[in-house]
């Protein structure tokens, strides 16, 4: 390859960590997680359709401690993807591109997802219908 004097883009780890990186990466990651979670929902519907016995075993799996932790993670993924998705829609409308606004909206979507997740599980546990 010919030697050039052009500047190289620095490697990934050179960049100072910023919250926008994390929101961007998490948006992708939660999107993938939700796609997988969609399969679980379909699985639950099929078990529901298959009859009482099948649905009871499905409830047993997702109601187990491991299942509950996974459900908690999935609920957070949903709320995070929802909050950050709304943020993206606002940005698609051409708003919020100042760096300070960008950072603030990043933190807002993170905080919003945590608040919504806690609120959701508080409601579920108080309604007494966990799984």
């Amino acid at each position, binding site marked *: 390859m010919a030697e050039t004097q052009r500047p190289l883009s620095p490697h990934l780890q050179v960049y100072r960590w910023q919250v926008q990186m994390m929101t961007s990466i998490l948006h992708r990651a939660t999107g993938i997680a939700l796609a997988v979670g969609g399969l679980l929902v379909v699985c639950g*519907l099929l078990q529901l*359709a298959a*009859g009482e016995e099948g649905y009871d075993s499905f409830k047993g799996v997702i109601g187990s401690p491991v299942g509950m932790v996974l459900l908690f993670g999935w609920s957070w993924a949903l709320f995070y993807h*929802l909050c950050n998705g709304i943020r993206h829609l606002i940005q698609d409308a051409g708003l919020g591109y100042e760096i300070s606004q960008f950072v603030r909206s990043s933190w807002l979507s993170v905080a919003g997802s945590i608040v919504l997740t806690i609120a959701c599980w508080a409601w579920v546990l108080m309604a007494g219908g966990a799984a």
Partner: protein
Amino acid sequence: MNLHVGTDDVRSQLRNPMKHARGLGSAKSGVEHWWVQRLTAAALVALIVVAGLWPDLLLRSGTEAAQGLLDPQRYIAAVGLEQAP
């Protein structure tokens, strides 16, 4: 219009703002896909909000719209697991 100045100048004069109105950038396509993504994203936001706040409403409208929504045969047939009679 002076066409005898330089290629770039000619191009910029011939470039028509109508392409922006039609949504044709240099990629020539993708505007429709972009809008469909935004439309479905907004619809999903609405769906999640309705499902979160009024889950009963969603289930009821679903069962009313499609009788036998909870009929096992529908789903078993839908995934092609139906036994031949």
